[in-house]
């Protein structure tokens, strides 16, 4: 007789033909997660994603801290996109506490979150490059990312974990001459982006590797509840900045990027094209921003939410990111649920990787715009 196994542990049957590969968490081709992949030769038979390697229980932690103390640790899931991660939290807390945000602060938030979206997308693109074995595409975005990191450092004082957006506005006003500096760097950045196209997106090897692989049809994209670039690559025109404009996005001039192919190439191309739109948004926001004024509505000390609940969402670098906050007249939230784009796109992995070549695994996996730390929370 076999001894009873501890809860959750399973024994697997060993097959002569099928080989089980543990891709991750200690693997250069996975993030902080594990993909249990079964291969038959070079073809993937099944894929079982196993996230949770960096699960930190942010939601549980948030129940023990008040609304202000929650700010710095709730940005931890995606430090490269910290403004966008905090954005829905700020919106939700503002609605919960009934705080009005000054007009200038709304524009500064939009600028900060778009800059941060570019930082995230460049980082993502760098990893995408090295996943496909393109070392130049690893170095270029990682270097150009510094431009925006410097800008956000000037704005917030920190290079990566900004904690810049707070309920009621932003933490501090823009530094002097920020507008000119920002516009100059955005201009330079757009020039650089065009060079990416020449070396990466128009590269025949990249095109032949990614085109027609991992196809996610429009119906399946909707059925699986995907979000962000994955959804837009499958032909669904859904961007929360357009569909449910928060703060001042309805005043700004930009468009949603949609592609119909639904393959790996489209999924990698859409975030790149969205960086151009981000540049447009930043320019437009700087033009339309009130030149002076308050940037923060001061909160009362230890504010209490009512006996209420709220669900707010924004479009982050990885898709829609929602905060569901239940409060019960206490300074701490009763329950915080973070609905993140990465976790919603996780469901695509077994679906898309089945039947693919092992060589397509990195492009499909990273093309899902999946951030393991965010998915685990």
């Amino acid at each position: 007789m076999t001894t009873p196994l501890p809860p959750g542990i399973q024994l697997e049957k060993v097959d002569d033909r099928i080989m089980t590969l543990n891709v991750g968490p200690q693997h250069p081709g996975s993030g902080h997660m594990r993909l249990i992949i079964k291969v038959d030769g070079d073809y993937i038979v099944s894929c079982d994603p196993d996230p949770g390697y960096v699960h930190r229980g942010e939601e549980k932690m948030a129940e023990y801290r008040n609304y202000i103390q929650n700010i710095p640790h709730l940005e931890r899931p995606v430090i490269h996109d910290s403004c966008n991660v905090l954005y829905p939290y700020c919106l939700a807390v503002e609605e919960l506490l009934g705080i009005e945000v000054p007009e200038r602060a709304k524009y500064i938030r939009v600028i900060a979150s778009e800059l941060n979206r570019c930082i995230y997308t460049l980082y993502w693109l760098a990893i995408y490059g090295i996943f496909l074995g393109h070392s130049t595409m690893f170095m270029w975005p990682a270097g150009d990312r510094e431009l925006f990191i410097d800008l956000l450092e000037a704005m917030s004082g920190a290079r990566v974990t900004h904690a810049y957006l707070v309920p009621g506005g932003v933490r501090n006003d823009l530094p002097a001459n920020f507008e000119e500096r920002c516009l100059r760097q955005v201009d330079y950045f757009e020039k650089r982006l065009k060079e990416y196209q020449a070396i990466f997106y128009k590269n025949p090897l990249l095109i032949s590797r990614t085109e027609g692989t991992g196809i996610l049809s429009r119906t399946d994209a909707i059925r699986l509840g995907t979000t962000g670039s994955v959804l837009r690559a499958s032909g669904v025109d859904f961007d929360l900045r357009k569909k449910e404009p928060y703060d001042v996005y309805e005043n700004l001039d930009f468009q949603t990027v949609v592609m119909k192919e639904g393959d790996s190439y489209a999924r990698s191309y859409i975030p790149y094209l969205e960086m151009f739109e981000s540049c447009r948004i930043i320019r437009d926001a700087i033009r339309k921003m009130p030149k002076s004024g308050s940037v923060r509505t001061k909160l009362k000390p230890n504010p209490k939410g009512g006996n209420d609940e709220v669900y707010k969402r924004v479009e982050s670098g990885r898709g829609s990111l929602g905060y569901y906050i239940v409060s019960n007249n206490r300074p701490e939230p009763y329950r915080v649920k973070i609905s993140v784009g990465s976790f919603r796109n996780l469901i695509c992995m077994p679906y898309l990787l089945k039947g693919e070549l092992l060589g397509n695994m990195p492009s499909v996996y990273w093309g899902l715009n999946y951030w393991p730390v965010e998915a685990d929370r």
Partner: protein
Amino acid sequence: MSSENEKDEQSSDTAATSSEDAGSLSKDETKKFYEEKGIDFSPDSPVRPKPIPPFEKSISDKIASKFGSKVNVDYVRASRIRVSTKKEDILDVAFFIRDELGYDHAESVAGVDYPDSKEIEVVYHLGSYTDDKLATQILTLATRVPREEIPNPGKDSTRMTSLREVFYSVEFHERECFEMFGVYFEGHPDNRRLLLPEDWADIPPFRKDFKIKGR
């Protein structure tokens, strides 16, 4: 129905305790201290009655007229509707929401633990990609399952019907809810652990009786 009463009870409890929270300074002293620093000390969150938006009202009316007393429309706000139902009826309500109203995916499945009323609430946030009018809408579908004092995930009475055959996208969310709250989803094909380690032997960690060390 029960949820609102429940919330009221809780609020009266917590209001009684929260007055003691002020710490060493008395309330007037605190107020003076912050007024000197120029910080606005307005009263607690202002309650402004908002007009009920007509489009959202029409959606909630459709659900209410179809199911009558089986469902309870908790609130109707701009872009947000909350509907709660009993766990036996949730499959019918979900089918109705998907087929008649046009919601096609779930954004998240959240569990909320209410130890006082011995219930765990499971909250589905549903949205729509196909219907452009519903693009801003989030329909919150909530239900409550019984809560055991000593949980035994998967084997006790904390269970409900899975919505996976209605909304395919809840698959991983329900797996997360299962491991974090111990709510077993009947009919879910793959009720395994997702985020927690395989050898996790403690109670489901997001329940309120699981305390973080040092807090």
